[in-house]
C-alpha cells in the first residue's frame, strides 16, 4: 500500500527529473536510483519531517554526482549533447501555445544547470526558498540570486529570438519578438 502523499511525491520527482534531464529514459533511471537509495536509507527518515524535501535531496545528490562523472566523460568524448535531447511532450492543440512551450524548453536548456534546478524546485514544484536551499545544499541567498538570474535569462531568451541560433536547420522561419500577455 503506497501512501497517497508518497505517490504524489514520486510524481513530482519524475516531473522534476524529466525537466532536469530532458530525456525520458535518463529521467526514469534517475528516479529509480533515487528510490533505491531512499529505500536503503529509509531508517534515516524521521516521521513528521518533510518527506518531499528528503526525497528531492536524495535525487539532487545523485544528479549532481552523475553530472560530475558525466563532465569527465564529456570532456573525453567531446559529446556536448548530454541529457538535454529528444524531448517528447504532449502537443497542446494551440499552435502558439505549442511554440511557446518549445521556446521555454529551449530557454531552460540554455541556462546553467544550477539555475535550472532552482527554478524548477521553486517555480514548478512550489517549494519555499528555504526548502529549496536544503535540497540543493546552498544558502538561501544563493537560491534567491539563482532564481532571479534564471528567470531573467528565461525571459530574455523567450522575448528575443535569433533566427540563426534558433533555427540551425535554416528553415527560414523568423519568429517575432513576443511578449507574454
Amino acid at each position: 500500500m503506497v501512501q497517497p502523499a508518497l505517490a504524489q511525491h514520486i510524481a513530482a520527482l519524475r516531473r522534476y527529473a524529466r525537466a532536469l534531464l530532458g530525456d525520458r529514459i535518463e529521467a526514469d533511471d534517475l528516479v529509480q536510483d533515487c528510490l533505491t537509495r531512499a529505500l536503503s536509507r529509509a531508517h534515516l527518515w524521521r516521521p513528521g519531517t518533510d518527506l518531499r524535501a528528503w526525497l528531492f535531496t536524495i535525487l539532487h545528490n545523485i544528479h549532481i554526482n552523475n553530472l560530475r562523472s558525466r563532465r569527465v566523460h564529456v570532456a573525453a568524448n567531446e559529446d556536448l549533447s548530454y541529457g538535454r535531447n529528444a524531448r517528447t511532450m504532449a502537443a497542446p492543440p494551440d499552435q502558439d501555445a505549442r511554440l511557446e512551450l518549445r521556446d521555454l524548453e529551449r530557454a531552460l536548456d540554455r541556462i546553467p544547470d544550477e539555475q535550472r534546478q532552482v527554478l524548477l524546485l521553486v517555480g514548478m514544484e512550489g517549494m519555499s526558498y528555504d526548502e529549496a536551499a536544503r535540497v540543493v545544499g546552498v544558502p538561501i541567498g544563493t537560491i534567491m540570486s539563482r532564481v532571479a538570474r534564471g528567470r531573467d535569462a528565461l525571459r530574455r531568451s523567450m522575448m528575443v529570438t535569433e533566427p540563426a541560433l534558433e533555427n540551425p536547420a535554416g528553415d527560414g522561419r523568423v519568429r517575432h519578438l513576443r511578449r507574454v500577455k
Partner: protein
Amino acid sequence: MALPIDEHELHLYVDEHLGEERRRAVEALLRDRPEVAARVSDYRHQNELMRQLFNPAGNAPPTSDQERLLQALGKRLGRGRLAALWRPAMAAAAGLILAATLGAVGTEYYDERTTATVEPMPSFADTAARVHSFYAGGASEPTEFGADAAGKLGPLLDKRLGAPLKLPDLSQKGFSLVGGRLLPAVEGAAAQLLYRDQAGRLVSVFLGPADKTRLTATQVAERKNDLSLYAWLDGRIGVAVVGGLSGDELRGIAEAAQHSLLPPPNGARPDDRPNAGSDKNPHQDASRT
C-alpha cells in the same frame, strides 16, 4: 509603503511566499510601474509553462521497477519510527546475535519462559559494548540521526528516560559528534551517540535505563575484544563510554562525558572510584552471553 521593494521580494511575490503586508506593498508598486508588472507577469507565466510542459512526465505511469521500489518504500516509511526502533532486533534475527542484548537494556525485567534458563541477562555495560561494536563496525549505517539532528535526541531521551539530559561534549578530547540512534529497551529507550576524532577513531556514549542492582554508581573499566569501557549510573540513567582505545585514554573521555552530563550524586567522577578489578564484577559473567 514602508520599505522599498527589492528584487528578491519581487520573486517571493511571484511564488506567493510573501506575507499579507509585503504582498500589498508589492501590489502597490506594480500598479505604479507597468514595466515591473510585466516582468512579474512573465515570471509567473514561466512557472505555469514549466508545469504544463512537465506535468505529463510526472503523471505518466511509473516503470515497473519504480513501482516495485515505490511499494517497498511505502511499506518501510509507513512503519516509521517503529521500524527504526526494531531494526536492530530484525538484524539479530538474521544471525547478528544482537537482539537479546538490546531487548535487555533494562535488566529488571526477566522472563524465564522466553530466556534460556542458565545465561543471565546481559549487563548494561555489555550491551553498550555490543551496540558499539555492531554499529561502529560497519555492519549497518553507523547513525540514525546526523550530528545536526542529534540535538533532537536529547529531548526525545528526556521523555523516554524521564530525566533531563544533554548530549555529552567531547570536543576537548578531540572527538566530535557524528550522530546517534535510539534503541529499544525493555523499559523505555536507550540511545547510542557516536563520536569520531581526526584519526577516524570511534567512541560511543551509550545512555539508557540500567539495573541498579548490577550497575551501581561506580565505574567499570573493561577490556574485551580490544574495547575499553567505562560505565556509571547517573541518577536513574546508565551511561557507558566505549571505544577501541587504551583504558587511560578512554578514562579521560569518560570524564569529559561525565562533566558535560548532569553532575553525578556526591560529585563522584570516574577517577574517584577507579575500577577495583573486583572479582565480583558482574559484567565478566555477562560477557559470555
